[in-house]
């Protein structure tokens, strides 16, 4: 029987084989070879693609290079979403490697946030963690931590250090002994087909009678169309970290074990493949 802690490691070390290709209209001095990279599911595009940037900048003139951005099949990829979420949402049922197009011009101002430095990623990451703790613990745990603890969470993510990260993050996964779980579960549900980027609502992990709410309960409450079969057939998949957890899974357990480092459960609702 696998230990629950193994799940934490499996989530942390998940990787997606990716092929980066330079956009054909970028001006180059010679042919740009594609660049292959294993992307960490739990990280962010602009945090882990320095080598990609360097590789393509070698064949371009300095004046042709401005802020890098990524696109998949015409859709600009939001760097502030974790990589695993982007893949599950846009490309999970397509053949590997994941083919991403790299751009250095015409930044899509209406679609993407700017990311001029690592500080922007850190600020975004920490803001998510703080919001998650506001939901779980009324911000008490995150506020009790020192600045160096906050820094350790970020450094753990940036340097891919599981132990360093979880030494602090485990405190964010605790709850008072008299409670059976967090106050509210930090989660976001994404569907590529909607204008709304995600659904986020207040949801308690424990019912009034003390029973544990499940993933199915959450979906029924917040996004019923995701699990109501049309014509008796389940048209969608509910995906977290590339897998479909059973709908009977307690949401408290999912929150503790399958959240991203930002402490949110990022859940994708995607079309079920027909074959």
């Amino acid at each position, binding site marked *: 029987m696998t230990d629950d802690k193994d799940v934490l490691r499996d989530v942390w070390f998940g990787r997606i084989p990716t092929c980066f290709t330079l956009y054909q209209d970028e001006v180059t001095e010679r042919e740009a070879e594609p660049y292959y990279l294993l992307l960490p599911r739990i990280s962010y595009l602009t945090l882990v693609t320095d080598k990609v940037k360097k590789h393509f900048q070698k064949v371009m003139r300095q004046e042709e290079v401005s802020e890098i951005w990524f696109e998949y099949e015409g859709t600009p990829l939001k760097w502030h979403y974790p990589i695993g979420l982007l893949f599950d949402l846009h490309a999970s049922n397509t053949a590997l490697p994941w083919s991403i197009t790299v751009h250095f011009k015409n930044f899509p101002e*209406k679609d993407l946030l*700017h990311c001029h430095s690592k500080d922007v990623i850190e*600020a975004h990451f920490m803001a998510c963690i703080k*919001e998650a703790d506001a*939901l779980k613990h*009324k*911000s008490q745990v995150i*506020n009790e931590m020192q600045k160096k603890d906050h820094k350790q969470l970020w450094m753990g993510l940036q340097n891919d250090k599981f132990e360093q990260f979880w030494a602090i993050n485990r405190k964010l996964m605790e709850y008072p002994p008299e409670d059976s779980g967090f106050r509210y579960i930090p989660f976001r549900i994404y569907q590529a087909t909607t204008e*709304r980027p995600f659904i*986020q609502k207040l949801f308690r992990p424990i019912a009034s009678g003390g029973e544990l709410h499940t993933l199915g309960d959450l979906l029924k409450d917040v996004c019923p169309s995701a699990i109501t079969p049309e014509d008796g057939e389940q048209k969608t998949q509910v995906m977290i970290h590339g897998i479909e957890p059973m709908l009977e899974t307690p949401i408290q357990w999912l929150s503790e074990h399958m959240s991203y480092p930002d402490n949110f459960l990022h859940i994708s609702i995607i079309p079920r493949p027909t074959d």
Partner: protein
Amino acid sequence: MSCSMAGEEDFVLEEKRFKQYCEEFIKRSQQIGDGWEWRTSKDLGDGYLSKTHYQVRNRKIPPDLKEKNHDNCEQMLCTHVEESLDDSQAAGVCATEVIHYEYHVLYSSSYRVPVLYFRACFLDGRPLTLDEIWKSVHACYQACLLEGPWDTITQQEHPILGQPFFVLHPCRTNEFISSVLSSSRKHDRHINYITLWLSTVGPVVGLNLPMSYAKLAPEQDTNDDSVERQRVEPHEAGRSAQAPSSAFGLGHLNTADLGVHKF
């Protein structure tokens, strides 16, 4: 930066109550022609307050630099450039910029407070950068914003529209709102949370509430029809050197009490 939401039981703004305050606020806005409206999202029925306005700025372009690149000069689209008539300044030109601002007020269920989202662009559609927005912030607020810009205004994805907006960080909202609200309730005065909050945080990002939002409500009566309105002359808040007065109905409270907040 810490978010101090814990502590004593502060006033907590529930989403339903937020919507009620917004409704009341919109009614008042319609009465005085301030242009706020409610937008409902088609799928989930939640919504937000929205207002658009145009800001006209005169920007002096130094003569020797008007041809060269100067900071963002080459990117500034000047809709109208005139020669200065003053001989002593004859070497310089004055450019008029028109900036389109959009303000949205959304409810954050995570922090239980309203959050101000905004974006701005020139008439040609080019959006203002965060730097350009900071520079346009009223001088008296710039000092506190410069201490830690990342804690105050950041670019974020609009939770309903999915597009990039700038956001005034909501973390400290509850601190100053609670103290004013509890004091007002002691005096049985009705305060609209949105008017109070927006009149305090709005000016930081160029959004001013006309003084007409302020009214003296009689004790325990929140009915508009029976309110004796204290007529106040419209106040040019944007240009003065002092912090603009907040437009809410507590005569004895002034902005000195609230201070200029580091959000």
